[in-house]
């Protein structure tokens, strides 16, 4: 038998799939897996004959593809029954289990697209059961092919399929359809539409579900699918709402899905793809084949709009738009929107919604039921399939298990079902109320560390401990030690002296003391009077000090210098007598300290912290940091930082010893390290920025006494140096603490050598006992795991407010419908898949590159992990599509080329800086922050110089490079493609790269994976790849 036609054109959509098939190392990613229940009275031979007939009647099922000399498809000759790719499996028991096993096997087996048929089948047969499992490659089979397949199979089983008659008709119809597709795709309007969609996507933020630092840029495409069948009642409610709204099911489901995606990506917009049936000829409706164009929908989500308005406006408009653009092939949009195919993910969208064809079969059909299965893979981060079945709507959610771990996918499924139910029940529901609070229990889950305090105020607590350990050393400076008994006497005497100067409960007393002993005595004396201390750093500008003193209504200070109010040295305040009876009973509402923190409006604000949060913190810390009488805590932090409280007060509450850092200078980290060793310190609390210098200075040293290294202040990132230090010191734990001044420390994440997972971006962890951490997402609800929101802190931790600033206080300290007061941090966080809080930053270090949100810190961390790099700062430069990152590094013996490769290996392409430069110093602003504006000016100058240099370097003596350059010159119609600048900049994209790599393979006998090429798409890098593989 001879085929009437032997080769067919390849559509752009098919070509797109060929590219993916070649670039993705998962051969089964595009398997379509179908389970058909058959009339069990049909024999194995009948089923074989029927399947053979279907293969011969459906030309697409006999297609195979080749890439060279140009991509094409050809048609295999008809099959004999023996050749049909079918295996019969007689089953005597456990039919369901056997079916599962065979499905899994079929799902896992990839296809060689060069060999027809791109289909395999297994027929399982028991007495009263008969199932035909089919795995078929997507390039020849779209969702709409299922009905023609089932119709033909049914007819063949009934003996009604006239193969000889339909074969030439169908082959002609296929050719005609493919021609029509190719012709339609070539129209000018299609190019215009693709350009318009591309331009729009470039301006749009990509929807990234479960956004987090170190989110994998590539995955192994392992997926899991969950079925969410809507009960007949729920389905009926959905149908009623669809009718009432006068929208299509597609619009209805897009409306709910877009809100879910926006919530779970932490944005007010959803970008997702949807496959649209693109069959053009009438005859194609009888054919299996791949006639689908997948197009992006960009849906704005206004949370205050009702579901009905959302569906009728934003969504309906978008659905209308994609229907008009149905002829536009996906790959064409890619070319216009994102020529750099980042990672191995879909370059345009990470989520998909597919309206599936109905799975009903007519009564009396030998095919009793039809069901599609997942293949254990995921092409998208999230895929939603919506199928009308005879039993109601079937929703299926497929997720990439690496990108969206199971708890995250479960949360998405919850949101989706809630949203659908609410929308169906009442379409006038505002979008934000389609959702509900995630578990309150989760927000109120704490780490459980707590040692019961003996009383509700710090002064009472410390006095009791001091009375029980009179001879033990409470505070230790070089050359001086103060026992608890001496401390108690000093505190009483100084308190009496302050009382004599008129200090009353509630009054604010400034501290300018310079030694640790004086500071501790003064602090505790102030607390004895139920007054509040205010650390005053005399190095601050006089104007700022004056503001602090005035705002806090501070009229007296202890120490020296000139803080602008009467100041008395500790020694001059000692007076005999007891003040306790004069101050009345202590209260947990009594203030403890005022600490000023920078305010975005220019003036610092003074946080008034009182006993209740600090007693809670102390009770937690004693248990969490194993503090006892043997504790020796280094006092490192300046008094004006609330960390100093954690070094001093809990240590005294534990009966331990506070050890002065001095004589080591705070900035001289090696001296601090020596001091830690010399004084047998057990607990150290460092700013994050000091951790790496600390472990570097500790190289080669052993710390016998050290038990805890605490850090806080900014996002903690760890590298191998830090990990090595803790690996060498298995008894030492690293504790990352988080907490704004307004609440003091509230969450912690603990790491030690026992933990196998030391993420470079360390989480801020879980709340400490008594603290509630609520993550409130964009919908105003408690966020489920994986959803970004603002962190609101409540329970025992919030301070009383900003001293003498009721308005600013009311703005940030807000009522909690579930408790008392919450402090709004303004920090963006999420609960990760394991229920641990991850800090994502504030908006000011967040930039957008080609629509992707980029945390500059993430780029910087990767750069800093490169050998020799001491510091890295990234800035975003340029506008629109030209916006890119520039990296500045401070490094010893910098190898920028190696750094660039490392960045390209570790980061998605949009995060890889286009330029990297070395600097001797990172410029800082007046207040010590990185001066990004100055770096941007430097970037402009340096990039200009680099361009001028490159202009003269487009020729090469290397014959391999010259050959590749000529190849690209031909493909791109470019006179002289640059050697080491990205070919993407001059028009290379995945399709012409496929051709280029095929030609390279022909010419040089080496197969260069397309992804390797895209990692560094330059002539020079391609030459290196070819050489490597020769």
């Amino acid at each position, binding site marked *: 038998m001879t085929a009437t036609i032997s080769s067919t054109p390849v559509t752009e959509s098919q070509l797109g799939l060929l590219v993916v098939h070649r670039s993705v190392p998962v051969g089964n990613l595009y398997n379509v897996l179908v389970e058909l229940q058959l009339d069990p009275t049909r024999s194995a031979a009948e089923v074989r004959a029927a399947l053979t007939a279907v293969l011969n009647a459906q030309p697409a099922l006999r297609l195979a593809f080749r890439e060279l000399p140009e991509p094409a498809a050809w048609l295999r000759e008809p099959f004999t029954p023996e050749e049909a790719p079918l295996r019969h499996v007689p089953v005597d028991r456990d039919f369901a289990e056997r079916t599962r096993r065979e499905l899994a096997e079929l799902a896992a087996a990839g296809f060689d697209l060069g060999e027809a048929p791109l289909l395999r089948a297994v027929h399982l047969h028991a007495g009263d059961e008969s199932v035909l499992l089919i795995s078929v490659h997507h390039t020849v089979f779209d969702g*709409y092919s299922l009905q023609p397949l089932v119709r033909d199979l049914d007819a063949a089983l009934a003996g009604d399929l006239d193969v000889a008659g339909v074969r030439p*008709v169908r082959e002609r*119809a296929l050719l*005609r359809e493919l021609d*029509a597709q190719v012709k339609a795709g070539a129209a000018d309007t299609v190019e215009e539409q693709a350009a318009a969609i591309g331009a729009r996507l470039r301006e749009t933020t990509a929807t990234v579900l479960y956004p987090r630092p170190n989110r994998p840029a590539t995955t192994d495409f392992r997926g899991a699918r969950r079925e969410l069948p809507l009960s007949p009642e729920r389905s009926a409610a959905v149908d009623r709402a*669809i*009718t009432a709204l*006068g*929208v*299509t*099911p*597609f*619009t209805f489901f897009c409306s709910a899905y877009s809100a879910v995606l926006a919530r779970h990506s932490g944005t007010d917009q959803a970008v997702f793809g949807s496959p649209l*049936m*693109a*069959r*053009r*000829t*009438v*005859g194609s*409706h*009888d054919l299996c084949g791949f006639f689908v164009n997948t197009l992006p929908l960009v849906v704005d989500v206004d949370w205050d709009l009702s579901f009905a308005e959302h569906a009728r406006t934003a969504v309906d408009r978008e659905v*209308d738009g994609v*229907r*008009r*653009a*149905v*002829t536009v092939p996906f790959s064409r949009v890619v070319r216009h929107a994102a020529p750099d195919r980042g990672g191995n993910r879909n370059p345009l969208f990470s989520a998909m919604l597919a*309206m599936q*064809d109905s799975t009903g079969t007519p009564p009396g059909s030998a095919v009793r039921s039809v069901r599609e299965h997942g293949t254990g893979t995921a092409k998208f981060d999230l895929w939603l399939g919506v199928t009308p079945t005879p039993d109601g709507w079937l929703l299926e959610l497929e997720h990439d298990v690496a990108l969206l771990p199971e708890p995250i996918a479960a949360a998405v499924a919850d949101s989706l079902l809630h949203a659908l139910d609410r929308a169906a029940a009442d379409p006038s529901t505002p979008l934000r109320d389609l959702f509900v609070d995630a578990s309150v229990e989760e927000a109120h889950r704490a780490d459980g560390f707590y040692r019961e305090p003996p009383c509700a105020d710090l002064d009472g607590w410390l006095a009791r401990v001091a009375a029980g350990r009179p001879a033990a050393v409470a505070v230790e400076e070089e050359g001086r030690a103060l026992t608890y008994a001496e401390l108690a006497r000093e505190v009483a005497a100084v308190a009496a002296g302050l009382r004599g100067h008129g200090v009353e409960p509630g009054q604010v007393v400034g501290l300018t003391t310079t030694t640790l002993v004086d500071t501790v005595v003064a602090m505790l004396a102030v607390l004895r009077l139920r007054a509040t201390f205010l650390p005053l750093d005399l190095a601050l500008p006089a104007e700022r000090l004056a503001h602090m003193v005035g705002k806090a209504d501070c009229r007296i200070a202890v120490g020296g210098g000139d803080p602008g109010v009467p100041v008395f040295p500790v020694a001059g305040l000692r007076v005999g007598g007891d003040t306790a009876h004069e101050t009345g009973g202590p209260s947990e509402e009594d203030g403890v300290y005022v600490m000023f923190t920078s305010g975005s409006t220019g003036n610092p604000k003074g946080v008034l912290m009182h006993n209740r949060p600090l007693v809670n913190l102390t009770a937690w810390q004693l248990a969490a940091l194993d503090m006892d009488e043997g504790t020796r805590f280094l006092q490192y932090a300046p008094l004006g930082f609330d960390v100093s409280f954690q070094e001093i007060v809990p240590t005294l509450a534990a009966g331990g010893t506070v050890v002065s850092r001095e004589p080591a200078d705070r900035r001289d980290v090696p001296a601090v390290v020596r001091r830690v060793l010399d004084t047998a310190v057990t607990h150290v609390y460092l700013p994050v920025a000091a951790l790496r210098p600390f472990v570097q200075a500790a190289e080669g040293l052993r710390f016998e006494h050290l038990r805890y290294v605490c850090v806080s202040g900014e996002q903690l990132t760890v590298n191998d140096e830090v990990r090595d230090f803790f690996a060498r010191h298995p008894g030492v734990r690293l504790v990352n603490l988080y907490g704004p001044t307004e609440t003091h420390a509230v969450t912690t994440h603990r790491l030690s050598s026992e933990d196998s997972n030391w993420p470079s971006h360390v989480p801020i962890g879980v709340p400490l006992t008594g603290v509630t951490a609520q993550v409130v997402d964009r919908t105003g609800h408690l966020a489920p795991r994986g959803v970004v929101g603002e962190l609101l802190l409540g329970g025992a931790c919030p301070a009383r407010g900003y001293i003498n600033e009721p308005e600013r206080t009311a703005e940030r300290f807000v009522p909690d419908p579930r408790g008392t007061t919450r402090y709004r941090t303004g920090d963006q966080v999420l609960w990760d898949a394991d229920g641990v809080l991850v800090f994502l930053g504030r908006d000011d270090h967040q930039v957008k590159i080609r629509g992707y949100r980029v945390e500059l810190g993430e780029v910087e961390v990767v750069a800093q992990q490169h050998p020799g790099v001491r510091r890295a700062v990234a800035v975003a430069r340029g506008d629109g599509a030209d916006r890119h990152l520039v990296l500045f590094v401070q490094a010893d013996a910098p190898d920028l080329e190696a750094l660039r490769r490392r960045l390209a290996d570790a980061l998605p392409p949009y995060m890889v800086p286009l330029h990297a430069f070395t600097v001797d110093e990172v410029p800082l602003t007046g207040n010590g922050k990185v001066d990004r504006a100055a770096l941007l000016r430097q970037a402009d100058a340096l990039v200009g110089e680099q361009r001028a240099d490159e202009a003269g370097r487009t020729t090469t003596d290397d014959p391999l490079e010259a050959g590749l350059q000529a190849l690209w010159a031909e493909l791109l119609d470019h006179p002289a493609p640059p050697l080491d600048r990205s070919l993407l900049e001059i028009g290379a994209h995945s399709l012409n790269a496929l051709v280029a790599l095929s030609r390279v393979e022909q010419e040089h006998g080496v197969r260069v994976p397309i992804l390797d090429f895209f990692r560094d798409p330059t002539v020079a890098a391609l030459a290196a790849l070819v050489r490597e593989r020769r």
Partner: protein
Amino acid sequence: MDPAVRTFVDDIDATIRRFVRVPFTDASTLAEIGLDSLTTLRVVAALVPDGDREIDLAELADLKTLGQFRAWVAGQVTR
């Protein structure tokens, strides 16, 4: 009405009825009677005898009511 055209109209209605189970008039919107784009194509495929006939899918986006759809289908059939 020309009997041939009348037959067409009857055919169109009969075919639509195979896919749509609720009562409809020319003023009914396609969405409210559940006629989605896939179904509209099936109606056309069932009515047009010439397999080579090409349909401009983008045109479907303009069809909002059954009346518009009926007129458009008639155009496809008699073209």
